[in-house]
Each structure stands twice: as C-alpha cells, then as structure tokens.
C-alpha cells in the first residue's frame, strides 16, 4: 500500500510556539461525582476462556486432575496426589496462584525458613518499612519473591539464584465465549431496603432486558450460520425491545450499539460493502480525546508506559522513543517533564511519532511535534521529533525510524499491535514481521498495552459474545462519568471498536484484540523477555485512579504485568518487554 512518509526532524531550540494545554501529567481530569443510579442493571463481570487446547485449567500441558479437581476432592480417599514430573510447575500451589517448579519446592521452603529467622531478628518497624519502601516484582514467582524479601532484610545475603523473577509457564488459549445475560435487580426488594438506588425498574423492563440479550445472541447465531433473513427479522425484534428499555444506560445503551452493529453487518455483508464509515483524522482525534477524558484507560496506559520507559532510560544520555500511534501526543508531555526532573539532568530525547497520513491538508504529526518541542524547550530538554506517516504499522520500514546505535530505544505500542493480527501477506503474518524488526532495533523496552479480551476468535458468535461482555463492562464503567460531551463522544469512540469487531472481516477487521496470555506467548516466541512492572508502578497506578472519584476501577498485578479493570474484570493490560539480542548477529541497528 502506498504511504506518505516524511522524515523532517524538528529541532527544539529553533522553534518558538506557545500553547497551554499540557499539564504535568498530560491530564485534564474531569472529576465526576460518582452517582450510583443505574443499579437496575447489574453487570456480570467475567471472562470466558476455555482451556480447549490446554486441557487442564491450572497449569501445564498435562492434565493433573487427581487432586486438583472438585470431583476427586469429594471422594473420601486419602490417597496422596500422584508424583509430578519435577520440572513441571507444581499444580497444588498453582491453584493458589503461585508458580513454583516441583523440584524447587524444598528449596523454597528452606528460603522461607531462612526468611522467617531473619524477620524474627528484625524489628516490626523494619519489617513494615520494607513493605513501604522496597519495590517488588511478580509475586506469582514465589521463589524470587522470597529471595527479594531476603535481599531487602539482609542485603549481604545473596539470592539463591532461583532466577530473575521472570515467571514462565504456558499460557491459556482463550476459547469460546458464552452469552451474557444481565441480571436486573428485583425492584420489589427496593421497598425492603429503600436506600438501594434511586431508580425503580418495573418487572416488565427487567424481562425485556433479559429478552434483549437472548435475542441478541440468537441473532448473532443466525448471522454466523449465514441465515441473514432470520437475522433481519430478529433485528426488527431487537429494535422493538430497545424501544422498551432505558437506552440511557446499562444493557439498553450497550445493547443498542450491538444491535446497530449487527444490522450493519446484515445489511452490508462484510464482503460486499463498507460497513463502517471512515472518519477523517480530525474526527478520529476528537473521539479519541474525549475517550481519553471520560475514562482512565488511556491515562493508565500512558502513565504506566511512561514509568517503565523512564526506568528503562535510567543512566542513558541519548534516548529515542518510537510511538506507534502518536495521535495527539498526550502521552509525552509527562515523560518530557519527568526526564527534565531526572537527577543528573535530562538526556537528549528523540521522539518518532507514527500516524496515519493526513488527507485533509493538515499535517497533524508535525503540529504535535512542534507542540512537544515547545514544551521540551520550556523545560530545557534537548528534543528532536520525527513524524512517520503510515496507514498501517506494517508499512513502516525500520530505516524510516533512523535509529542510531548509540541511543537507547523505547518502542511504545498502545492498542496497536492487535491491528497486525489480520490476514498475512506473501511475507507472512504482519505481526511477526513487525515484531522482527522491532527486535532488530534492540530496544531497551517494548511497551505493550492491549485490550484484555479475545475478540479475535475465528467463530463470529464467540467474538460477538466475548465483546458483548467486554464492552458491557466498559460501558458500565463509563456510566460513572457524567461530563458531557466527553461521555457521548467516548461512547462513539467505543462504538467504532464494536462495529469493527462485529461488522468487519478480513483486512478491514483491525480490532483483533487478544488477551495478555496470548501476547505473552507471542512476544516470548518472537524473542522478547518480560520486564516486570513492580509494586511501585502498581501503587502509582492506584493513586492515579483515586483522582477519579468513580470507585470501581481496579488495578491488578498479573505476573509482572498490570491490568486496569472495572471491579473484578480486567479491561486493559500493560506489559513491558526487552529484546533478546539475536544470537549470531552483532546488532548495530539499521
């Protein structure tokens, strides 16, 4: 595909532009009071992942169903579990969330004993101090966790050499997704405990909600079977049902987007026509910006990425950030300012921003570059910007990025890699090609933030149901935002994703989200090793979220990665990686 790329670096000292829109954290946070109004829609937060290719849920390729399954737990036999191959992950502790190799168990026990002895000798103040001050990584890797505690309490004692703390083990394959049914609260009970929410839902509306979801599923099933005439009839049904629910929130709101998406798909089958109107870059930016404001997902992504990049750049004098989707550059003012404040002074910072070519005459990449340059100038950070215009990430050629061997490189991919999971060209799957050249750049850090869901399953119905769960949860979290027009435009931003997942196929379907377990497999397979995000990043992310008075967002630690979700359902996952240098080639960059 043709692309326009221009590579004119901009040098900060020679520019004089002023703007006022960036704050320290690149946020203009709308504090929206949390009003619990829509309790009549109780959303069900869950994943649907089937261990279809890995038969046993808890770990490892071989099923150990003797003592870990509920069925055998009911027996009154006192048979001990069968011996496991020693280099496997112990499945008993796996059920408790820990990964320990069977043949490391004794050693871990010894280290725990040692840790206890050391703790007894320390004062309670010291012990809670190490809780407050030290940074920890990947608690799933029990052996390295125990060692890190030992190191904190007794810096002279070396670790047992049980590894760098990079948890290993096979991932899961997300399988088929089941249907989602909302469970409207029984309004009768509203009379019993009256302080329960302000909205009263009539029994008719509750039934309609459940019916709405059932018909949605049936329609999706019909679409999968290719029975478009039935699907069309069901869509008429759905329009009717939508008219009877409260479409301002809850299942009514998200349901209407899915009905809309289904009807587009039925009317314009993906093979034939355009199902999704392309917005101009400007319109895209507007939606993006409001999505950024209305909910914390992008802020969390930027914030977590910046922290990890900052750490990766520690001690480096020449650093180069490659942003796979510059958009409005909202991520970068905070990093620029953090680098400015760095002890020892800021490095020379180069930023290469990739973005779609401007078709409307505006050169938005350059505009953003100029603004960032001005900011950098104002805080005395030597800064250079390059814009790379490309419609697709796999159109970017590494030479366009002009990476120098002397610089420390950070590759920043916020919700971009999944777009490469579509059908491959003659040279292979796009994602593999791109990961390959990223690896060739030898980045100190590859930051990956992705939607935490599987919207890339081969069967349409599975994608549909999984995305219905996912976006219902996301919309539920958005309900807490009351600022307008942020909320409405944020919803439109999300609607475009939904449409792409539901309506498009082939290369047009770019929203091919896959969960963290899949990305881990992919990235380790492509020659990357995890860089764990630690308890400090976790703590700071939680603090960031308290700026949102909407309670309900939750940050979780997941084997060295961080997820942000709504209540108990993670919605986006952030992970950091470093390239393992290719074995036989001396990497000098290209």
């Amino acid at each position, binding site marked *: 595909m043709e692309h326009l790329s221009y590579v004119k670096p901009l040098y900060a000292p020679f520019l004089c532009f002023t703007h006022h829109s960036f704050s320290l954290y690149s946020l203009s946070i709308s504090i929206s009071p949390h009003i619990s109004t829509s309790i009549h829609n109780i959303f069900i937060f*869950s994943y649907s992942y089937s261990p279809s290719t890995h038969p046993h849920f808890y770990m490892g390729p071989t099923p150990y169903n003797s003592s870990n399954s509920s069925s055998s737990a009911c027996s009154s036999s006192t048979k001990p579990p069968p011996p496991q191959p020693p280099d496997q992950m*112990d499945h008993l502790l796996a059920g408790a969330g820990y990964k320990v190799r069977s043949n490391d168990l004794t050693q871990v026990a010894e280290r725990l004993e040692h*840790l206890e002895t050391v703790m007894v000798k320390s004062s309670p103040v010291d012990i809670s101090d190490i809780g407050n001050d030290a940074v920890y990584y990947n608690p799933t890797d029990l052996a390295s966790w125990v060692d890190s505690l030992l190191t904190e309490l007794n810096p002279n004692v070396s670790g047992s050499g049980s590894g760098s703390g990079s948890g290993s083990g096979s991932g899961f394959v997300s399988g088929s997704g089941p249907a989602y049914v909302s469970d409207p609260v029984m309004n009768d009970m509203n009379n019993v405990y009256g302080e329960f929410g302000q909205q009263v839902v009539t029994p008719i509306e509750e039934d309609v909600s*459940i019916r709405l979801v059932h018909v949605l599923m049936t329609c999706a099933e019909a679409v999968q079977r290719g029975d478009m005439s039935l699907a069309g009839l069901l869509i008429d049904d759905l329009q009717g049902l939508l008219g009877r629910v409260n479409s301002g929130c809850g299942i009514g709101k998200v349901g209407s987007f899915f009905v809309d998406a289904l009807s587009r798909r039925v009317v314009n089958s993906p093979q034939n026509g355009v199902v999704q109107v392309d917005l101009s870059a400007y319109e895209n930016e507007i939606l993006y910006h409001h999505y950024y404001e209305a909910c914390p997902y992008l802020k969390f992504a930027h914030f977590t990425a910046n922290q990890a990049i900052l750490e990766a750049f520690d001690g480096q004098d020449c650093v180069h950030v490659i942003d796979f989707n510059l958009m409005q550059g909202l991520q970068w003012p905070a990093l620029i300012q953090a680098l400015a404040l760095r002890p020892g002074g800021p490095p020379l910072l180069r930023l290469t921003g990739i973005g779609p070519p401007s078709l409307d005459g505006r050169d938005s990449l350059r505009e953003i570059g100029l603004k960032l340059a001005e900011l950098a100038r104002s805080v005395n950070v030597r800064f250079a910007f390059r814009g790379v215009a490309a419609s697709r990430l796999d159109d970017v050629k590494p030479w366009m990025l002009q990476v120098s061997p002397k610089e420390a490189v950070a590759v920043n991919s916020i919700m971009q890699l999944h777009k490469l999971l579509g059908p491959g060209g003659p040279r292979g799957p796009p994602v593999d090609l791109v990961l390959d050249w990223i690896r060739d750049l030898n980045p100190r850090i590859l930051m990956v933030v992705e939607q935490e869901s599987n919207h890339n399953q081969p069967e349409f119905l599975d994608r549909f149901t999984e995305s219905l769960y996912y976006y219902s949860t996301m919309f539920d979290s958005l309900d807490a935002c009351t600022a307008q027009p942020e909320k409405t435009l944020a919803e439109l931003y999300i609607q475009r994703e939904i449409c792409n997942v539901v309506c498009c196929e082939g290369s047009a379907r770019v929203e091919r989200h896959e969960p963290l377990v899949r990305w881990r497999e992919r990235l380790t397979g492509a020659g990357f090793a995890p860089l764990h995000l630690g308890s400090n990043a976790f703590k700071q992310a939680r603090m960031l979220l308290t700026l949102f008075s909407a309670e309900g967002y939750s940050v979780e630690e997941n084997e060295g990665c961080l997820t942000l979700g709504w209540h108990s359902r993670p919605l986006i996952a952030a992970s950091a990686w470093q390239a393992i240098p290719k074995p036989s080639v001396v990497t000098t960059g290209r």
Partner: protein
Amino acid sequence: MAGSNEINVNEAKKVVPLHTWILISNFKLAYNMLRRPDGTFNRELAEFLDRKVVANTVPVDGVYSFDVIIDRATGLLNRIYRCALPETEPGHHPAAGILDLENPLSTTEIVPVVIFFHGGSFTHSSANSAIYDTFCRRLTGLIKGVVVSVNYRRSPEHRYPCAYEDGWETLQWVHSRTWLLSGKDPKVHVYLAGDSSGGNIAHHVAFRAAEAGVEVLGNILLHPLFGGEERTESETKLDGKYFVRVQDRDWYWRAFLPEGEDRDHPACNIFGPRGVDLKGVKFPKSLVVVAGFDLVQDWQLKYVEGLENAGQEVKLLFLKKATIGFYFLPNNEHFYTLMDEIKSFVSS
C-alpha cells in the same frame, strides 16, 4: 512467644505437608510486612501481592463462575459459582455460559445455596483471591449446588459492622433471586459458611437473620475467628507455634472493632460478658470445625458450648492435628474429612 522461633518452625513442619507449609508460611511472612505497628495497613502492597483470578463462565471441572455487583454504593460484589450441565461430548458444554438468570435451579430437587465469607482476619483476601476461588469451586462441586462468595468490605478501612452489613445484604439478595430457587415448594435453600473471619461474619449474619425471621438452614464455621480480653490456655500454649501469634490476632481485632473497643465487644466475644443470649432464638444448626493446632480454639470451643447452653443444635468437628488453612490444599486427611462433613451437613 512460646518457644524459640527455630522450634516453632520445626513444629509446624512436622504436622503439615510441604505444600501447605510453604503456602501458609508465605502468607504469614508477607502479612507481617503489611501490618504496621501503628495499626494502619499497607493495602497497596496487599493488593499487589494477592493472587487474583477472574471469573470464568466457561465451566472448568464442571463449575463456572460469574461476578455480580449487588450494591454500587458500597461496591459490594459477589462471585457466584454454579455447576455446569454435564458435557454432551468431550469439551462441549451445552449452553456453555448462557447464564440462566430466570429459571429456578430445580423444580423437583433441593439445591443448596451456600453463601461463603472468605477468611483473612477481616483484613486480607477477596472473593477473587486464588485460594478462595479454588476453594469455592471445590465446594460447589462437592455440594452440587451454588456458592455465593461475598466480597465484603475489609478492615481497617471499613470496621465493624461493615462486613456484617454486606453479609446481611447478600443474604437478602440471595433470597430474592428467582434463579436460586429450588425444590417442589420453591424457596432458596440457604446456608452460611466461612473460614476464620468469614466464620465470625456467618454467625452474626445468621443471628440477624434469626431476629428478622429470614431463613438460614445451617451455618458452617471453619475455625471461626472469635476472641476476648482473657488469655485462654490455647492462646498461651500455642502462641507462635503453628503460623499464628497472639499479637497478630490482637492487631486484627484492633483493626476491625470500633476504635477504643476491647475484645469483649459482642462482635468478638459471642458468649462473653457483653454477649447476647441466644436462648429461644431460631438460630440455624451449626457445624463448627476446630483445628487442634489453632491458638483460637478455646474461644471456638466456648462458642460451641455457648450454643449448646442456649439449646441450639451444633456439631463440633474437632480436627486434632490440623492447623489453620488445612482446607486450602487437598493434600491431607483433614481436608477430606471436612468435605465429607460439609456434604452431609447440607444434604441432611
């Protein structure tokens, strides 16, 4: 602390399998870091360390789960576990995950619904903690029913009576779900269960239910957390020997009870000087499980005695050589004994 630390470590190792020793010791030592001497709690690190599991509507070992928010104001969330229909072919679950939230569990059979309160001394863990998710899955498969795991508010951020309020709210919510009904004259067949602080919560919710005329068919208390100002013999003798120290217990009570209160508060000391008389109260039958190496056992035995004196039906399951947390891993005979007892308790 009774005995030097070395002796204590060796004592504990003698009575529990290796996996259990690793698991409980890990919690013990991590928790030491989280409790600050000034009574505050390092919640950030606690959440970072807690291994959590997402709900899964695709059945695993015959059980699937999903989360429901039942009170947005408090953020009260429950995780529901249900048994899946049997597989029609290997790997294919009929109606997998199409959550039926309309029809009763059964119109002919009685299907028990156990409301479970996880432990953690009112402070640690969540309904989506891996250890409790695993336990609840096992429990669901065992009773062939439904388990509702309550993600109650924890101390010190939310002291007494928040956890009890959340439990009470859940009980009412459970009773009002049409999709939890079972039996010929349909009703929700509810049991309350909990380990450690969860057992304490179960008691208090059951009491409130009894007073309000809300039916609870039975209480299952796994080494429930009770206490009092007095130092009992078991507390003195077992202090520090099997993973638990009295000073830790004291910290958790200070974090849970209203500020300024002592351990004779009726939340803590059920049949103590400020306790409520249970005579004549329509209290559910109780199964109280006491671990012989738990330093709280004297308080648990006093609780059993108190129930008996009040004419309440109670069965004591005393597991002489069990430590706290024996039920997390199915690698010891106490686990299987417990499972058998629970199974017969909910089917009688």
